[in-house]
């Protein structure tokens, strides 16, 4: 499979929605005795990745598969993450779930794992081009959803601004592009600024302050993650514009929910990391059991606002049910 085309998780044709997996491939087959799974995360300093780990753990507990979940020491520690992944391969885990720092930094794992006959599932965010299996949401869709909210709820249009994640990171590029393209196509909106926030609250606060100072008539911000969005919220409040400026984040961390409920953050695009983790491990275990799955298993996401926050923030099963309903309804 060296001739596998480089993966683009957003556009790959060989895909299946998470809600269809059981219908198409049946229940999870019986696993070989002693199956254990290793997972490598990007960082644990962001709630999103910790929640993903909770998902792995929850599903692992459910089916009796131990999961180790390790993370690099900091976001951006590319070689450290590679070291971790290599350690997991040598230690004989049966399947690997990896969320790479970058598109390339875990590439050697693909070969080592192949040699050791260990399937690798690329979970979310950065995309290893050689990945045979990917579980995650459509990054671009994040931005598109927020753009659609603006088009629907701000029919008169206006000025909007984007605060981007780290320069050059796939998720940031895709989300930004999705938002920018969609909102520009509507013709009524103007993206007056698209500046780097480096995934950092303070940087985003400062950037938002400056943008608001220059464009007091701004109607909305879109941020590539929730931490940045929460920084922007503070800047908007400090400028006294909380009633005029809508702020959207991405990820759906608990702080974002709290802020939405408090009426501060307008909304976030939740990509349901816990559920994603469950789906990813299930996918991985199906591969261990020998099933042939499509290359991409798409996981859900939803635009959360004050109106629907409760629907998506209940116990795991309730959310799963809600998302299954969404999937059935086709959004």
């Amino acid at each position: 499979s060296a001739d596998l085309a480089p993966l683009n998780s957003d556009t790959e044709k060989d895909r299946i929605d998470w809600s269809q997996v059981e219908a198409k491939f049946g229940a999870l087959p019986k696993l070989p005795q002693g199956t254990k799974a290793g997972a490598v995360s990007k960082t644990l300093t962001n709630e999103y990745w910790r929640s993903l780990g909770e998902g792995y753990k929850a599903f692992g507990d459910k089916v009796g598969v131990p999961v180790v979940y390790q993370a690099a020491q900091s976001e951006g520690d590319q070689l450290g993450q590679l070291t971790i992944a290599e350690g997991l391969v040598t230690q004989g885990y049966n399947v690997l779930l990896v969320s790479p720092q970058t598109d390339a930094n875990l590439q050697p794992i693909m070969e080592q794992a192949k040699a050791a006959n260990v399937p690798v599932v690329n979970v979310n965010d950065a995309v290893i081009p050689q990945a045979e299996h990917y579980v995650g949401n459509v990054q671009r869709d994040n931005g598109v959803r927020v753009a659609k909210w603006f088009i629907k709820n701000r029919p008169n249009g206006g000025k909007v601004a984007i605060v981007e994640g780290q320069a050059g990171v796939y998720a940031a590029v895709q989300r930004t592009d999705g938002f920018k393209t969609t909102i520009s196509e509507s013709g009524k909106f103007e993206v007056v600024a698209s500046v780097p926030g480096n995934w950092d609250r303070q940087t985003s606060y400062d950037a938002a302050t400056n943008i608001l100072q220059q464009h007091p008539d701004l109607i909305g911000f879109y941020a590539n993650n929730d931490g940045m969005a929460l920084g922007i919220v503070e800047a908007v409040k400090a400028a006294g514009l909380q009633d005029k400026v809508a702020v959207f984040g991405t990820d759906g961390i608990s702080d974002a929910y709290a802020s939405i409920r408090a009426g501060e953050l307008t909304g976030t695009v939740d990509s349901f990391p816990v559920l994603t983790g469950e789906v990813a491990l299930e996918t991985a275990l199906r591969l261990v059991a020998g099933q042939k799955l499509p290359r991409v298993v798409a996981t859900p996401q939803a635009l959360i606002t004050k109106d629907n926050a409760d629907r998506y923030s209940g116990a795991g099963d309730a959310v799963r049910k809600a998302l299954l309903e969404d999937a059935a309804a086709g959004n």
Partner: protein
Amino acid sequence: MSDTTLVQPRTEFLRGFSMRDAGTLIGLVVILVVFGALVPGFFAERNLINILQQSSINACLALGMTLVIISGGIDLSVGPTAALSAVISASMLVAGVPFPLAIAAGFAIGLACGLVNGLLVAYVGLQPFIVTLGTLSTYRALALIYTGGNPVLGLPTSFRAIFNGSLFGLPLAVIIVAGVAVIAWIVLKKTPFGEYLLAVGGNEEAAYIAGVPIARTKIAAYMISGLLAALAAQILVGRLGAAEPILGNLWELDAIAAAAIGGASLMGGKGSVVGTILGAVILGAMRNGLTLMNVQSFYQLLATGLIILAAMLIDRVTRGRG
């Protein structure tokens, strides 16, 4: 004796504001003029205040960094020190501990972090760079472990008002940092400790022989740096309403850049409070201007790099072979 009084004013002035500082000032003016010409509204009062506010945290750290650098050291651990101080103080606030106590605890953490750095440098005799590289990881890890990686939210609004208010139209943070700068200036120029710092960084052996308390001087420098990191943390927490364990990432680089642009020599024995403040404002003005110009992120990064180099070049040219 009679001409002393005549010479006095100029000497006194030059002492406070050296040629080197003038070079930094020219750098700042050039940057302001360029952005002023390119960005409409750059000189709006509101925006100038924004620049000051956005520079205040870095300026606060950079002042502490300047003292450490003058003593011949460096403090890479300011960001994690700030984070550790912030999360502990914030969780006390959330738990209902009275403000003064919680803030004092935050400051105490900053001092303690500085003390550890200082002890390792001064008594154990390790290299400052590597000591604070080690504590950079250590303090960050402690902050993460303490919070489990989660931000501390739900701070009382009345607390936030302390560091987030305004006075005479100026943000309180700016006023606080200006006050710190004045104190730092006085400490450096007027007190024995200031002399000791310059002596320890300038010629440690000579300072030792002269009876300067080397270890105490170095430790004090690191403790001040830790304290100011804690202060910066309070300001930031007041502004953002949340204390994150990952707060202060890469702060050390900005602080060092501000100090160096302002004329501090990483070889020790040299540095200026006025210069450091100007250096911090240069960096702040640059970020502000680039954002207002909506420069794309790659090009912003490029501009950041080039402006640091340009600021150093301008400075180099204006002060000649110094």
